[in-house]
């Protein structure tokens, strides 16, 4: 992890403030994600994780500060230019009524000009993306027929077809069983090894510790701590956020993380 430190910063927020009509949610957030790393946001409900994601994605206009994607300010980018840089995986509750192949193909949308028709090249890229996530055999199935894990792979394939360097995910493991979660983690590792920058919100702290290169802990719209999983554990921040301590244990199979529940009782 140390040798990655000199990496290029892909996503950077500088003193960003943002919020909704009811009031400010993010009070000056400095956050960054480096190329080829998995950066995870953790924090209690309502701490501003999703809001930060929405700001980075350009869904929510920010009030102050600046957001830079690959060193270009978000304000200087068109929606399509931004979509060529950042792909987004929504929470898996919405099931569109189309075939998986079509879904992946729509990842090519930001590259098209009016009248937008998908060409042979787009079909080829979509097919490659589907092979990569292992859903090529389900290409002609309807999204509604697929299981939650499969659907998520379709969304990931869509993000790959989008050929964006950054992939942003909001609680990607929520609807997955434990086996699917581990497969998902493997796929994420593989993607980050291929140079994709991944930013996600995770509620499962143990998975976050195992999977992430960096973790940003948010509380009340501020970054409380930003660092490697080890830094986060040593600082005892998880206990402050959730009231539950996480401990690590070095074993033969690498570092293992566990909730220190005894302490709570």
């Amino acid at each position: 992890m140390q040798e990655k430190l000199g990496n290029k910063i892909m996503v950077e927020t500088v003193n960003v403030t943002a919020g909704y009509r009811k009031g400010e949610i993010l009070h000056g957030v400095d956050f960054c994600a480096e190329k080829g790393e998995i950066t995870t946001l953790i924090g209690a409900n309502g701490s501003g994780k999703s809001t930060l994601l929405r700001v980075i994605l350009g869904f929510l206009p920010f009030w102050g500060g600046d957001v830079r994607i690959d060193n270009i300010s978000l304000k200087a980018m068109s929606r399509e230019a931004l979509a060529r840089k950042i792909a987004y995986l929504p929470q898996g509750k919405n099931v569109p009524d189309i075939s998986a192949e079509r879904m992946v193909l729509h990842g090519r949308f930001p590259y098209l000009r009016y009248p937008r028709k998908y060409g042979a090249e787009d079909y080829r890229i979509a097919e490659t993306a589907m092979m990569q996530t292992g859903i090529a055999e389900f290409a002609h199935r309807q999204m509604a027929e697929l299981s939650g894990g499969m659907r998520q792979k379709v969304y990931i394939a869509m993000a790959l077809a989008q050929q964006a360097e950054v992939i942003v995910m909001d609680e990607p493991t929520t609807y997955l069983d434990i086996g699917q979660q581990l497969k998902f983690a493997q796929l994420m590792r593989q993607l980050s090894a291929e140079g994709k920058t991944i930013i996600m919100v995770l509620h499962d702290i143990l998975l976050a510790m195992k999977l992430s290169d960096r973790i940003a802990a948010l509380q009340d719209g501020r970054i409380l701590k930003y660092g490697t999983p080890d830094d986060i554990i040593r600082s005892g921040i998880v206990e402050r956020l959730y009231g539950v301590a996480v401990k690590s244990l070095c074993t033969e199979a690498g570092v293992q993380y566990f909730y220190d529940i005894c302490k709570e009782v």
Partner: protein
Amino acid sequence: MRNKKVSASGRLCLVKMIWRKFAVKKGKRCRKPYLGWGITVCILIMVLSMCLGNIQFSPLELPGILRGDGGNVKRSILLYARVPRTLASLFAGAGLAVSGAVLQNVLANRLASPGIIGVNAGAGLGVTLCCGLGVLSGFWISVSAFAGSLLSILLIFLFSCRFHASRTTVILSGVALNSILNAICESLTVLDTDLAMLSIDFRVGGFSAVSFTRLLPAAGLIGFGMLILFTLCNELDVLALGDETAQGVGLQVGRYRMLFLLLAALLAGAAVSFAGLLGFVGLIVPHFVRRFTGNESGKLLPMCAVSGAGFVTLCDMVSKLLFAPYELPVGILMSVIGGPVFLFLLVRHKGGHGQMYNE
């Protein structure tokens, strides 16, 4: 005899093969040539609709009659009654069906139809006001219907822009506006009972009074709207993926949703302006077409246009012939068919919350 039959069926097979090949050419997957069949059936209905009536022509006679071979009376019947009426029902059906399909996709609700965003109520009020002012020419009734429907759409636009309304809110505000406009309409007709008599033709809907002056501007609008929509199929599909996914692939969601609502309103408003309030076309046709083509707009919209046109023309023909020489207004016939279908849809989709639309 037997030999002849075999060779005929053999020829049919050949035609089918060529047809399949033609249809498969674009996509990789084999798909059935629904659009080809649709167009064929539609043309058949169109020709039948021009031939059948109180005076019957044979299909082969038609070009001759147009040239004036069968005498002036026949030519006038064909040119000033049958042709405008057939064209009107084709355009109205296509416009309403495409408008319904677009609205269902944009609002992510299978039970959306042009009526739900206030097209019908606005047009109804426009016509009632027009009759109230004493203007009774067909052309001005068309204009006021179109203006009424556009105005009510604009109201919903302003409302949803002002409050950044979600898709559900757009539907609900449409329903609210519908009831407000209908209430105004009803109270006007209660105050002046003549109005009820004058505007009833329009409210029921039908093609018996269609003329080229009423038809052509509206038909132009419908053709224009459909052409634009057919080039925006991918945008429509991406929009239907849900707001965040659509934004994630670079679609300006708010702008495109408004554009689609406006185009749908344009199609429906133009259709309603000469056809009257034809209830359920915008609801039934897209729903049935979906079963065959799936939900991809590239296939759905053209098929909706063709089947909507065919369906309305068929209904118009049946209503013309069923109790000849009396005519049943086509709107009534369609409501008789549409009502039960609507109930069926309600049961099937549990109020529009099928598994794909739990927003």
